[in-house]
């Protein structure tokens, strides 16, 4: 991984457990004309990513270097697939192509699938290369489709995940929509006022179970996605699409909601999202709602858009491995409309086995993953 709280998996995980705050004043581009100038910015890229022209590709390479330090791509290059999710793709390169770089290369870098191909090139992967752009739910669908590629036999290994950079393009957009918090991000808290954006890349190596070598973090049991068909920018008022995605993921994994031990929520910190998500989870969890711990890591990292769902899936599996659930940073005062157990304060000593991760995004996108830890 490459995140505002750590440029490798160990630093990311220890930061989450410690309740680290990765949100800071943005330094890489001008924000003086915006209402909010804070976000989850990575201040210094690791050496492996330096010199890569596209920041999106650089973040992916930074995450891939961390992945390769932990796992071998032990398959023929043409049997290694790459599938990543993104909300913004190479949009910053498009900005450069329009402004100060008239080269053909820069124009092509502006396409949203360019960073995925740059990653495949860096990895030497010559199998299928797919880019998912289900907005902020992209990283979840990418993992799901990666698993499908394995089931299909279209690849033997899949490098799957998500990424997005913090850039002026997206900051200006969310700032104009008044979606950004002027102070702290407070998922599920009574005083929540909005989200802050962050940048990150997160990748996992997927393999069919009999082919898996070396230490494993866990299993992806099922994934589901569904459309709201209600609004282009706001979630469905009743969370119907989210609920459908969750139930599809549970069905695909042959898992009963009663067997879930932990939920990693989308939990952006906006008034609407957190209330709607709580209601959907309450319907799915039934009489165990309020008992099953639910957290959001966006108070620590900001909303990392295309990377968020993959980071949250990784967090779930690390929680299962180590027996600790990170707290919801920023959650202090309960909201009557958000009445689940949000893991306030500090990390909790619980070893979840089966976990659910939920994601939503612009365009009525909803996605869910059901994961299982390997103790």
């Amino acid at each position, binding site marked *: 991984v490459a995140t505002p709280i750590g440029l490798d998996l160990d630093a990311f995980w220890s930061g989450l457990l410690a309740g680290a705050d990765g949100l800071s004043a943005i330094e890489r581009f001008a924000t003086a004309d915006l209402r909010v100038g804070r976000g989850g910015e990575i201040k210094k890229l690791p050496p492996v990513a330096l010199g890569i022209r596209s920041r999106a590709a650089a973040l992916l390479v930074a995450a891939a270097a961390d992945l390769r330090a932990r796992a071998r791509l032990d398959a023929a290059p043409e049997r290694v*697939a790459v599938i990543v999710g993104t*909300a913004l793709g190479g*949009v910053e390169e*498009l*900005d450069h*192509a*329009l402004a100060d770089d*008239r*080269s*053909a290369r820069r*124009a*092509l870098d*502006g*396409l*949203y*699938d360019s960073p995925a*191909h740059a990653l495949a090139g860096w990895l030497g992967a010559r*199998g*299928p*290369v*797919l*880019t*998912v*752009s*289900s*907005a902020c739910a*992209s990283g979840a*669908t990418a993992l799901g*489709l990666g698993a*499908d590629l394995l089931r*299909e036999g*279209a*690849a033997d290994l899949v490098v799957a995940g998500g990424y997005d950079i913090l850039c002026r*393009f997206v900051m*200006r*957009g*969310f700032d*104009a*929509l008044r979606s950004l918090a002027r102070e702290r991000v407070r998922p599920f808290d009574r005083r929540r006022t909005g989200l802050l954006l962050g940048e990150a890349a997160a990748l996992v190596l997927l393999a069919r179970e009999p082919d898996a070598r070396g230490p494993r973090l866990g299993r992806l049991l099922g994934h*589901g*996605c*569904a*459309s*709201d*068909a*209600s*609004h*282009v*920018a706001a979630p469905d008022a009743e969370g*119907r*699409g989210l609920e*459908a995605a969750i139930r*599809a993921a549970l069905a*695909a994994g042959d898992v009963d909601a009663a067997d879930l031990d932990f939920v990693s929520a989308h939990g952006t910190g906006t008034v609407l999202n957190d209330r709607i998500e709580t209601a959907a989870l309450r319907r799915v969890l039934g009489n165990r709602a309020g008992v099953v711990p639910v957290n959001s890591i966006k108070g620590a990292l900001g909303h990392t858009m295309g990377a968020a769902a993959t980071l949250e899936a990784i967090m779930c599996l690390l929680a299962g491995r180590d027996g600790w659930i990170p707290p919801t940073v920023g959650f202090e005062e309960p909201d009557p409309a958000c009445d689940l157990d949000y893991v306030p304060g500090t990390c909790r000593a619980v070893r979840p086995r089966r976990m659910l991760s939920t994601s939503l*995004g*612009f*365009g*009525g*996108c*909803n996605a869910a993953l059901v994961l299982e830890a390997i103790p």
Partner: protein
Amino acid sequence: VRPPGARVEAVGLLTGWGEGVAALPDEARAAARGRGVMPLPRPTLNGERFRRATRECLLGVVAVEAMLRDAGIDREAIRGPGTALVFVTAAAYGASNVEWLAGQAGTLHFPYTAPSVLPGEVAIEFGLRGPYVILIGGPTATVDGLWQVGRLLAGGQCERALVLAVETFAECKALWQRARWALPGPLVESAACALIGPGDIAPAYHATAAEAPLERAVTARAGRTLACAPLVALALARAAGSRTALVSGTWRGRTSAIELAIAGRPVLV
């Protein structure tokens, strides 16, 4: 008992040449007469809801309407959670992004910069609440999308699926002109939608494959339609009365292919 396969039930197609395969010229390059981009006009759709919608969103809506006409069904037949939507594009978000970057667009334009908003508008318009996948890329991504639809149908996660592709180029013509060595024209704006239903034959998907003859035929007749190209191929095969089609797509050095069954045209009495 769930049928194990998938079948193309209908295809709606609009290109810079006109509606349907009948509008395609015999030789796109000659027909373009040196024009780099063959544009599609902004569709005229009524309703307050479409006031802010971008041209590419409206093209997505009219592509679905064209598919419904080809299928001989009305929009109620696809409404609800039983219909999956897979959207694919290489470039249709470019116009909205360029507009936002130029600083001229209003606040409410920002969501339209997301590629997911085009299928979002389509989903709202037709009430599509089933599985939902959005892929970015050229024709290989559309083949990958057709494969994904086959999986969704076989897994019982939907009863039918729409594979929708939209490509627009006019607003970013200068950028595409810079990359003309990579994509010799003409670039032909297109919007296409295939309705895929359950069938007896499972699609045969090849994640890496050789270029199929139909792909060359599409490029020759339609020009560069990027993500729409495999759907143009399905429209050509359906118009020719083929009962199966091997459709391939090539993009950034990779070719993928899928063989699909195709339904016969509805008999009008």
